[in-house]
């Protein structure tokens, strides 16, 4: 009898220790053992969004592997499917419907592009399925996924630092450092990401006494941006704001430097990948942006993540892999605390959603929580391109 007593104490201690190491919830009053937590990710693996989708996938898969290897979520294994939407809105929505209604996934991740989120998030909301955005940073993702209506969407969350936070943080930080007087904004008018970013810039600059001399619009597919850069340079601003992504920031920066402009580039999330920094090379040196993540950030959970990622994939992670990884951690933590029944899908999805709202865990992005509008609450890093394909840290701004 005594030995049994001792063994059960040991078992309980082990379990408590295991819970503690995932940084999350309380005691496991539920055992989910033998069950499967089904998650579906809608990511752009082919098509133009294919620049980001694979990273989100790799980060998420790593997290799933780690969690499953250390006992799963209260004993349940996570089954994550990766579904390509070919960067196409309509396909994104069709895939979402299949995952929600046929696969009966507990929750979804994605989609990769803000453009596709416009189609998918309202659908997930109307079908009452939690969906966690892992890379969309435009406006009207949360809380009003059904914009122009303003009823808050209950099932839509995001862990990707929005431009609404990132851009003003960046501008504020630079204004405090250098007090610029004038700026010009270059924006791709047919790209939601860029356009949203542009709106945010326009709404923010006045607060920091920066006079926006011009807003120059172009179409994202245009090859030759030199006429637009020429217009910008001719206005002689202190700052040029670039809110696009893909190959556009590097092109603008290279062209502006060629035309002799020496001022400061400020951008949004579009600046935050190694590819853009490498492409901009010398022209981009010193270009600043605010990032949700920084390779060298000193949180312990980040170091573990970076080491594990390098071991698994033989390359450095980036912001998208960090956010994909974090998303799984968030969902796993919420699932643990949600008292899932595994027999009432609608009820489980609602419980998961509620549990997500109170998430508070350590992630590669630092300590992470959701705001009351399901948006991101985390440390922000202001970074600058180093001219050689990497970034240097300018400021670390802890969450308030």
């Amino acid at each position, binding site marked *: 009898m005594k030995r049994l007593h001792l063994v059960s104490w040991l078992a309980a201690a082990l379990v408590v220790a295991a819970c503690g190491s995932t940084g999350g919830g309380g005691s496991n009053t539920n055992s989910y053992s033998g069950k499967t937590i089904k998650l579906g990710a809608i990511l752009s693996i082919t098509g133009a969004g294919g620049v980001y989708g694979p990273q989100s996938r790799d980060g998420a898969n790593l997290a799933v592997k780690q969690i499953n290897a250390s006992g799963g979520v209260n004993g349940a294994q996570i089954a994550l499917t990766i579904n390509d939407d070919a960067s196409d809105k309509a396909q994104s929505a069709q895939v979402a419907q299949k995952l929600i209604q046929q696969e009966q996934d507990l929750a979804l991740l994605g989609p990769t592009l803000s453009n596709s989120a416009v189609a998918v998030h309202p659908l997930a909301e109307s079908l009452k399925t939690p969906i966690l955005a892992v890379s969309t940073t435009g406006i009207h993702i949360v809380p009003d996924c*059904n914009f122009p209506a303003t009823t808050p969407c209950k099932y839509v969350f995001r862990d990707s630092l929005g431009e609404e936070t990132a851009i003003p943080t960046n501008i504020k930080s630079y204004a405090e450092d250098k007090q610029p007087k004038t700026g010009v904004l270059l924006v791709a008018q047919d790209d*939601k990401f860029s356009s949203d970013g542009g709106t945010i810039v326009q709404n923010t600059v006045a607060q920091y006494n920066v006079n926006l001399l011009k807003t120059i619009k172009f179409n994202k597919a245009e090859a030759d941006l030199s006429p637009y850069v020429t217009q910008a340079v001719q206005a002689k601003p202190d700052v040029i704001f670039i809110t696009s992504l893909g190959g556009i920031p590097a092109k603008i920066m290279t062209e502006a430097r060629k035309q002799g402009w020496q001022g400061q580039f400020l951008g949004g999330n579009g600046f935050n990948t190694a590819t853009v920094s490498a492409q901009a090379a010398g022209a981009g040196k010193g270009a600043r942006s605010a990032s949700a993540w920084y390779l060298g950030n000193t949180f312990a959970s980040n170091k573990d993540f970076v080491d594990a990622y390098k071991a698994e994939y033989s390359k450095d992670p980036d912001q998208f892999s960090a956010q994909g990884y974090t998303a799984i951690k968030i969902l796993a933590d919420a699932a643990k605390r949600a008292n899932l029944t595994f027999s009432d899908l609608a009820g489980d999805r609602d419980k998961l959603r509620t549990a997500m709202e109170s998430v508070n865990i350590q992630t590669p992005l630092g300590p992470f929580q959701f705001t009351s509008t399901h948006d991101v609450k985390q440390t922000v890093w202001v970074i600058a391109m180093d001219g050689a394909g990497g970034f240097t840290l300018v400021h670390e701004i802890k969450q308030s």
Partner: protein
Amino acid sequence: MDFFIQLFSDPVGFWNSHTLLIAQIGINSILAASMFIVLYSGQLSLAAPGFMAIGAYTSVLMDQYWHTPLALNIATGVFLAGVLGLLVGLPVLRLRGVFLAIATIGFIEALRLGVILNVPITGEGLGLKNLSADPLGGIYLVLVSLVGVLFVVWRLTKGRLGAAWAAIRQDELAALSQGIDVARYKMIAFVLSAILAGFAGALEAHLNFFVDPGDAQYGVARAVQILTFAVLGGSGYVLGPVVGALIITLLPWIFQAQGIYINIVTGVFLIAVIIFRPQGIVGRGGLAIIRPSWWPRRAGPSAASPG
């Protein structure tokens, strides 16, 4: 292949969880019917996406600003598409073959890049959100409409219009010399095709929470896709393009397992089908439209193609 497994083992479940996909097939089929009409009358018009845009934006804007009922919104969109079809058709109908195709490409891109992207009310580059979209229930409207459309088009091809169109397609000069008012019949086909495209556009907007002026929605990419429905399926029968639409819309699902190679497999598939069955899957008469004068002609009228 588990796509098909689910389809056959649990049809009801499949239906319920794929309404968006099935509805898209329906919409693409209506577009295919629109393409069928112009091809059947010997006109290689790629203007459908432009008329789709008119139908879509009109119905969504009316809903957003005037909150009018769906039927009225769609009807207005269709009507405007038809009017624009008349206006665009007038100058371009004299053009033949590939020249008409390019002129219609000019039209749709001028509309999309020049007008839609620059007029604030359309939401410009970001498009419009359609809050009264009904992705789950809209499927019934789409399918009923499809049946209606196909029936009407089929009857038309059997009647006098169809005969005139076939004659024009075979040989415009000969038809003219037989007393057929070629210009009038071509215009009728063009406007009818515009109406169907406008209708499809309005339906598509009703099914999705967005309307946006991307290349894949209303640009050349869409026009080429619709053309592919017709060429792959064969445009001798109205069912030809519909079969083409079905296959093309399902391709990403059928080839899902190919993962990152999906586009390569799709390309191979397209090439293989068109080489081994150039008259299309539902062949029969095929595309006798843009044959330059030296292209070998067959002996009788619409002889069945070999193979």
